[in-house]
């Protein structure tokens, strides 16, 4: 009986903070999606589902929508592959080198996305263009999204690297020894031991990178402002423009609300996919 209450007691402090900072404001903001508020007026009118109907009629939202999917797909794959590789490199046996490497891979996390974007704007224009003899990738509509993904991965790989690293540290060495005794090669050790036991790390990293790329906003806004010609505009940027630039706060809120719902569905599916495959020791 007592134990039954304890499990609730454990979540209460966190939940109180969460409710205050996110749940209540979110509920308070929902009604705006059903109004014609322009973001400035003191009064607004309820217009039912009109904003939501408009979303499907809005031809301009299509490009941001596809861009967002492209960001999510490329971003999630690249950022997880890179950070897993970094974590595995660091988890290998070279003493000095690895602690230097660990710090270096993590330092970019300290840069805010705005500073990072400016840094890479320099690099793309002055360095990478000379190195590969190409024009600034950020000015090229077909390359701008991968180029921004690279910026984001440099900025954030350290985060996932740490999570993968703590996952790798959690794998008992005995399992590798046992696998080696069974004659497994390095690749088999990776697929049979490392991957299954890294599932908790995967479920965290994949879900979170996926949704953070789906929400992509700050880096893109500072790097390209959504350009050139809208080629890197994401749904979040479009929402922001409606809220604060186009005087269409009601519509912006509706897009954002519907978009959050989609994200929630995607996020829950992905995380339950990985959670099911988690192994409990």
């Amino acid at each position, binding site marked *: 009986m*007592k134990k039954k209450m304890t499990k609730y007691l454990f979540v209460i402090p966190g*939940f109180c903070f969460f409710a205050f900072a996110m749940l209540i404001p979110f509920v308070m*903001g929902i009604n705006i999606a059903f109004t014609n508020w322009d973001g400035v007026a003191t009064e607004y009118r309820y217009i039912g589902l009109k904003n939501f109907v408009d979303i499907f009629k809005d031809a301009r939202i299509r490009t941001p929508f596809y861009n967002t999917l492209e960001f999510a797909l490329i971003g999630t794959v690249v950022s997880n592959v890179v950070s897993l590789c970094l974590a595995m490199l660091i988890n290998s046996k070279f003493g000095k080198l690895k602690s230097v490497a660990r710090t*270096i891979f993590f330092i*970019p996390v300290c840069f805010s996305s705005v500073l990072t974007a400016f840094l890479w704007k320099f690099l793309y224009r002055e360095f990478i263009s000379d190195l590969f003899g190409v024009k600034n990738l950020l000015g090229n509509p077909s390359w701008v999204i991968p180029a921004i993904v690279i910026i984001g991965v440099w900025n954030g790989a350290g985060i996932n690297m740490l999570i993968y690293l703590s996952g790798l540290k959690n794998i008992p060495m005995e399992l590798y020894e046992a696998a080696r005794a069974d004659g497994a090669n390095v690749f088999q050790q990776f697929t049979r031991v490392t991957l299954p036991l890294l599932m908790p790390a995967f479920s965290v990293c994949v879900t979170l990178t996926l949704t953070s790329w789906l929400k992509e906003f700050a880096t893109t806004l500072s790097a390209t402002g959504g350009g050139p010609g809208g080629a890197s505009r994401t749904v979040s940027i479009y929402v922001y423009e409606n809220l604060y630039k186009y005087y269409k706060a009601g519509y912006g809120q509706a897009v954002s609300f519907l978009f*959050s719902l989609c994200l929630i569905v995607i996020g829950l599916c992905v995380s339950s996919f990985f959670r099911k495959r988690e192994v409990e020791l």
Partner: protein
Amino acid sequence: MKHRKFTPGDVVVVLLTLAAIVVFVIPLYLAVITAFKSKPELSKSVLAWPEGLYLENFKEGMRRSDFFHSLRNSVLVTFPSVILIVLCASMSGYSVARHAQKTAALRLLDKMYLASLMIPFQILMIPVYRIYKSLNLLNSLPGMVLMLTGTSIAYASFLYVGFVKSIPREIEESAYMDGCSEIKTFWLITFPLLKPISATVAALHVMWLWNDFNISIILLQKEMVRTITVKQFYFFGQYTAEYGLAFAAAIVSMIPVVTCFAFMQKYIVNGIAAGAVKS
């Protein structure tokens, strides 16, 4: 041990690591040299080595960002929030990991936390500001701590859930046998075992909260309470930007967080692997 023969695999690993280091260092190098250049020098060449040790950026950057005062503000919002996050999130992550299978309410909470990660902060801004205005919490550092903690709990709990599962239940069960309550067991047995992930959560949140811009910009509007990160944006004007100053200020303000990370590393690395689980 001392003169172990290098296998070809080891050579590949070292080379790859070095290559990765180079890729990661180039932008860092650029950030550092930018901080040592005056604007005219920077506009002549971005990549060149600085002509001299131009320290004016650091001086001016620190003066204009009122460095020590805003540093104090940053410390006062970041560290209390991180401690709260680690304490609250480890508990709720633990509870969800251990009991969600049998408890619908916890499953719902887990899903709700996950769902909340998908919500862009822009749509919360006006309601949050209204709440803070009515509670008189605007421009207050504790108010900021409250907000930062509240918006981070979900992510941190999510991180904990997976890792609690990797800790064998038997360890806790033997503690129950000895008559420990669940609360006591958690703090005495489980929490210490969570050290690597706690260190990870702490390291990540120190970075994030230190660099938070979205929330601080609306809740902390007076110079008095502004954090160092917000002050850095003073160097980006409407039509022109002072990159040298911005990077100088950023580099100096990074020192505390990087030190903090270097300190945390030990725990991340020497956590569970050090043998706690195996025994």
